[in-house]
């Protein structure tokens, strides 16, 4: 394994851990951006550069901006961070930590090393993805569009409702 790969993987994991332990929401968002960027690097190393691009543009770009906007709207302050601190006492970590550890251990235990020669890494280009996407999975694309539309409508509805109240 390349050192670069190792680095990207460790940044990803550490970033994720930082995300769930931060008290201030903006910090967490920034760590999440870091995590996602590192993940994009991992994807590139797997030859999925198209996916990596999407990860950066949509996830780290669009979605995270959404988070930032919302956090800004929520207008979080010192009281919130102290409350977060109060919520994040070590006792609260015990149960979830054990549970997550068990799940992790079990998943790792289940993971069976694949035998046989790994094929040479050939990049899957956007061309391939596009062919597949609008060939075999065209119906899926339509469904996703419905989903997006539904999300759009519901988000709009919830937001509009709030505006109507005030």
């Amino acid at each position, binding site marked *: 394994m390349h050192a670069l790969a190792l680095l990207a993987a460790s940044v990803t994991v550490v970033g994720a851990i930082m995300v769930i332990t931060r008290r201030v929401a903006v910090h967490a968002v920034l760590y999440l951006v870091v995590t996602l960027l590192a993940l994009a690097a991992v994807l590139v190393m797997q030859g999925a550069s198209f996916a990596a691009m999407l990860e950066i543009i949509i996830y780290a770009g669009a979605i995270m901006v959404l988070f930032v906007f919302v956090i800004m709207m929520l207008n979080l302050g010192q009281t919130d961070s102290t409350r977060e601190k109060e919520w994040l006492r070590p006792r609260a970590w015990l*149960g979830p930590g054990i549970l*997550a550890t068990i*799940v992790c251990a*079990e*998943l790792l235990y289940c993971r069976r090393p694949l035998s046989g020669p790994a094929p040479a890494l050939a990049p899957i280009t956007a061309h391939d993805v596009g062919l597949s996407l609008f060939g075999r999975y065209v119906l899926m694309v339509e469904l996703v569009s419905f989903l997006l539309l539904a999300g759009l409508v519901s988000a709009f509805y919830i937001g509009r409702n709030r505006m109507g109240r005030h």
Partner: protein
Amino acid sequence: MATFLIPILILCPLAASLITFVSAGRMDARGIGMVACAGVGISAVISIILSVMLLSGPVTGVLQVTLWPWMHMPGFSADIAFMLDRVSMLMILVVTVVGLLIHIYAASYMYHDPGIARFFACMTLFVAAMLVLVLASDLLCLFIGWEGVGLCSYLLIGFWYDDPANTVAARKAFYMTRMGDVALLCGLLLLVTATGGSLRIGTVLAAVANGQLAPSGINMAALFILVAALAKSAQIPFQTWLPDAMAGPTPTSALIHAATMVTAGVYLIARLHDLFAMAVPVMALTAVLGALTLLMGACTALVQSDLKRILAWSTISQLGYMFLALGCGVWQAALFHLMTHAFFKALLFLTAGAIIMRAHHEQDIFRLGGLRHTMPGLTAAFVAGASSLAGLPLVTAGFYSKEMILSGVWSAHFNLTHGWTLSGPPLWGMALLGAFLTALYIFRCVFIVFCGKAGTGAAGRTSRLMSIPLGCLCILSLCGGVIEMPDTLLPLHLFSGLLDPTAVLSHTHQPAWLVMAGAGAPLAGLGVAWVLWGRSSPVMREIPGQAPVICPVRTGRGMDALYHYAFVQPFCLLAWLTRLDILNHAVTGTGLLIQTASARIFRARADFLGRLAIQATRMIRWAGHLLGLLHNGRVRWYAAWIAGGLCAGLAMAVLS
């Protein structure tokens, strides 16, 4: 020809019955009367034709016709089959001819009754049922007629149903005869089991003759059939229904007493006389019961004050004669008396009906009186019938038939078991006494009603339609008996020769004084009656009504009361007590009991059970609380449960 005529013979009255019943309210009274008379009249003509055919044939000739198989199966077969031999020939002649006369009379008598259609429907059905009864060659087929006759009598006795007393009388008649029917049914079952599956009269009698039946079986069968005949013919101990049967219209009474119904029992025993001849104890019982009945009937008739009731009791008494004759084995005499009795009793009833009708429905003989001046024709008819009933010597039919019975009884002899014997002379004495009493009571009635001071005024005239049958019956009841004479007078045996040419009864060994005694007894009765009631200054106008012996007898309620208190009341009481179905109560009560008991037990164990229950409740509540914790609505907990489930699932997958 005969196979065609015999069904027609039965179908004619049946069709008339159906037509009159269906046309109720659409046809006028005249038309209904004509239809009914035509139905019975056609069958009367047919029966005469059939008689001629039968008599012109060989001596033992029998006309057989099997219409269709009724029930055929392994072990049993019965057919709707008819048979015309000389006995049934006599019966159909009596039934149709007398029946026709009664119908003609009734067409006038019932002219103004609104229910005339129902009346004639029942009357013609009655005749049809009786014809089935006498013609059937299968005992089960006979049973159809037997029950049909009972049903029709029920309908006719209760014809004027507005008065509950009439319907009670009708039901009484049916119930009484129904008991006999059950006995007959049992007798038939016994016979069919013994003969191996057939109830053909010929087969049954052959089986009896062959000794297929054990003596005890024969006795039982004869006893069963005797009970049936007793019930149908109103003999002791079933006599109580017949006087009450007067509740019906008078032509009905005439039909029941003269032509149909009560003669069925006599006919049945005469038909099965071979069976009875093998059952000596039953024969003796028949004779004794007949003799007792004839005396009892005569005594009761002597103290009655109701004209129709006198005649009713006289019928019971005369039927006693017939049973006496049957018991003594002279069934020809019984049938002969049956025939003459049919003539004179029909005459008496019809005349009585005419008298009552003209006397404003007055039936009490003491309120009538002196009628010979206002209605001489009816007086003549009634006297003719009365003298025939009394058996005045030589000039009446009743004399010859009664003489035949008396001579037969004299020579009877019963060898009962264990050395007990019963011989004829005592029975003969009773019969003679009965003859005396018969003359006494009927002439008492004649003298009271027709002589003496005028009672209730009479109105109207007897219509011609009513007088023609009366005239015919007068002739028949006076002259109908000369076809059979005692040897002492003239060895003329047309009647018994007609019935059974091979065994003509002859009583040459009997002393001549027997006939003299038989002739003397009615004359003595007539004389005494004249002395007591007939003279212008009667010795005894009326038997003291308050005498304790007479009173129950007069009302004829002695036996009635006994039955009432012994059977009817307990039955009603028990039925009333159990009307709500004790078993129902038992079951429902058990349910209630269990319910109460469980409640009791629960209360008794309340501390224990209660604690148990409280504990259980607490546990359940606790468990519910625990479960409720799972559903606390907190998303994170749900997520935790999902993760836990994932853990568990994976663990199972891993460890397995």
